[in-house]
């Protein structure tokens, strides 16, 4: 009889990395479904190609570098799906594949693989694609298949978008595959909170900051309406709920997460108002990614038992 000699603890909870990844994919399904309904079946093709190419690139990387296959942890699939959600439905398929190469190989694998990347692979890939495929990923289709300006483009003028707030909440507006329906994204976000995959801290801090700042610095007659449109337009909901909450690239401390969300919100507004592109979410989050570790280092609970830790005279 061979008794195992190991250190305590001798039991584990039933949390597992790939279960968490699966939960994220499930949470994205409502938004994907709305994307397919409003923008057409091509959305599904884009998503499928994105997921498959991400997984294939990671598998190739493991093969070439002679590592154990890591695709089974599900993170490559999540990256592929997230990247697809940020792209317009008309994006050329070959560009999707190039984008995933950048995301998986350059941003993730070359930085050390899962858990080591500084920047969100899907968002960094989108930023890269904006650079080299400017037309491919800035042409947006509306409900009738006709290229049209997204609500964000209207707001740059500045003017309120043509779509009603309700339409934008439900998803009846032009935009990228995953960003059009705030309702679907919120449903996914609530699912993730209930499943304890994410904490509502970052999304609430991010969306809250953008709401407050756009109330203060509004550009049309009605501050409330402007603020509501600011929150519902562009990739804000997708970014706040699914991108900014990416574990690897965001802070882990509670205060750090709030500061991070506030920073993302402020930067989004600044980039939207003063930047070249109508959208600011991508660069806002990427910039906050760069300081995530720094934020973690200087936040964190006060030491147990010290005066700041609380509870002692």
């Amino acid at each position, binding site marked *: 009889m061979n008794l195992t000699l190991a*250190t*305590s*603890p001798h039991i584990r909870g039933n949390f597992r990395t790939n279960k968490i990844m699966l939960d994220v994919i499930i949470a994205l399904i409502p938004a994907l479904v709305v994307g397919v309904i409003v923008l057409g079946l091509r959305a599904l093709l884009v998503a499928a190609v994105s997921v498959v190419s991400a997984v294939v690139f990671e598998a190739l990387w493991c093969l070439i570098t002679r590592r154990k296959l890591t695709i089974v942890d599900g993170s490559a699939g999540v990256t592929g799906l997230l990247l697809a959600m940020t792209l317009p439905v008309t994006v050329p398929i070959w560009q999707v594949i190039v984008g995933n190469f950048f995301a998986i190989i350059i941003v993730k694998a070359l930085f050390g693989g899962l*858990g080591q990347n500084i920047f969100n692979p899907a968002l960094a890939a989108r930023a890269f694609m904006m650079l080299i495929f400017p037309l491919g990923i800035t042409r947006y289709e509306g409900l009738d298949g006709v290229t049209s300006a997204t609500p964000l483009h209207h707001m740059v003028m500045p003017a309120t978008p043509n779509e009603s707030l309700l339409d934008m909440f439900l998803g009846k507006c032009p935009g990228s595959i995953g960003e059009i329906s705030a309702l679907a994204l919120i449903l996914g976000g609530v699912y993730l909170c209930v499943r304890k995959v994410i904490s509502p801290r970052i999304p609430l801090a991010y969306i809250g900051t953008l709401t407050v700042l756009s109330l203060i610095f509004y550009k049309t007659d009605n501050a409330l309406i402007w603020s509501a449109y600011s929150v519902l337009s562009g990739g804000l909901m997708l970014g706040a709920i699914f991108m900014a909450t990416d574990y690897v690239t965001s802070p882990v401390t509670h205060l750090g997460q709030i500061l991070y969300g506030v920073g993302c919100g402020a930067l989004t507004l600044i980039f939207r108002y003063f930047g070249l592109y109508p959208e600011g979410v991508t660069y806002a989050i990427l910039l906050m990614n760069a300081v995530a570790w720094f934020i973690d280092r200087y936040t964190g609970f006060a030491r147990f038992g010290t005066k700041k830790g609380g509870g002692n005279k």
Partner: protein
Amino acid sequence: MKRLFFGGIHPRYNKEMSLTSDNLTTVTPNQVVIPLKQHIGDVCQPLVKVGDRVLKGQKIGDGEGMCVPVHASVSGTVSAIEPRIHPNGQTIDAIVIDNDFKNETVEFTECDTPLEDLDLDTLVHTIRESGIIGMGGAAFPSNIKALTSMGNVDTLIANACECEPYITADDMLLRTDPEPVIQGVLILQRLLSPERTVIAIEDNKKTAIKILKAFAKKNPSIEIAVLPTRYPQGSEKQLIQAITGKQVPPGKLPIDVQCIVFNVSTFAAIHNAVRLGKPITERIVTVTGEGVRDPQNFIVPIGTSFDDLINAAGGLTDDIDRVLNGGPMMGIAQADLSASVVKATNAILCLKKDPNFKVENSVCIRCGKCLNVCPMRLKPLYIARYVNAGNVEEVSRLNVADCVECGSCSFTCPAKLPLTDKCREGKQMIKEEAKK
């Protein structure tokens, strides 16, 4: 439910499997092996030699310094005095006694002096002479703890939480023989004169809570605090935080926030020592786990081997993976089952392989769950990274010295990283750095 301490986890408790009966079997082993050190401190010297006949309750080991005597738990003949394996993994000199099954005891002097007239110095002396140490697992000499706290205690806490999964020894004590626990509490109340006396228990022990509340009615100076079940509620610092709201400062002791905590079994032992004149010769041990055939609680003479107890519980299953001294979160894995039950052994846990250890890719994804569950507010993910990088300065800056090694971080990690081990390694790194 209100959170009374930081972090914490909810493992599956599996307590019902050992709560099979309210009638405890007393084990009668052929031989007992009594280690000469069952406490934190210095090893005792043997007071008997091979061939001597000893009686149950006879003092057979004692020493100078920080020492607590050990006593024979059966009557019989000393057949050997030699190094034997101790459940903490060390090999320590022990006295081997062959049981003569006559159950003859030394003479015990009873004492029914009213509480108010008990002499405090004599009390402390009796506690020491009866070999009393912290029976919740820490094994600190109770006389020293009491002596260094006298005059300074605001809150006296009896720990009935038993927060580790599987273990039901304290629960069974409260169900089968609660009177000595209460009397022990009253004795220590007399010794330490606290402003507040609390018996703390987790809310998953409904029968014991009823019993305790009935006693509290008759003894209104004793509060019963029913705490929400969460691991590690029974950890001393977390318990003090839950009951008083105060946090023990880093590197300090409970008495520094005017608190003192003892396990309920220790209180019962104190009553037996003071009122019945009996030293510690036996205790309740839970033999449990999916890896043993008849999980149950036993009354066990100190020095009974793990082997004997496991056999009394039906023996191990074929797919046994590990046998632990203690609970699954902080217990010590045993290699040699001839190790003997000591005064602080509250459970022998026989576990099969846990399927939850399986993971596809064991790398840190910075989910932060470890940070959320740490009761000492540490950042295990960063401690692990800096330990791996050999960066002593950063590891020290992360306050790894505060880690109580409760295991919550390792339990929670979705990547199954050995975070508790990394914290231990970090502490070791700091020790070695300090030596330079």
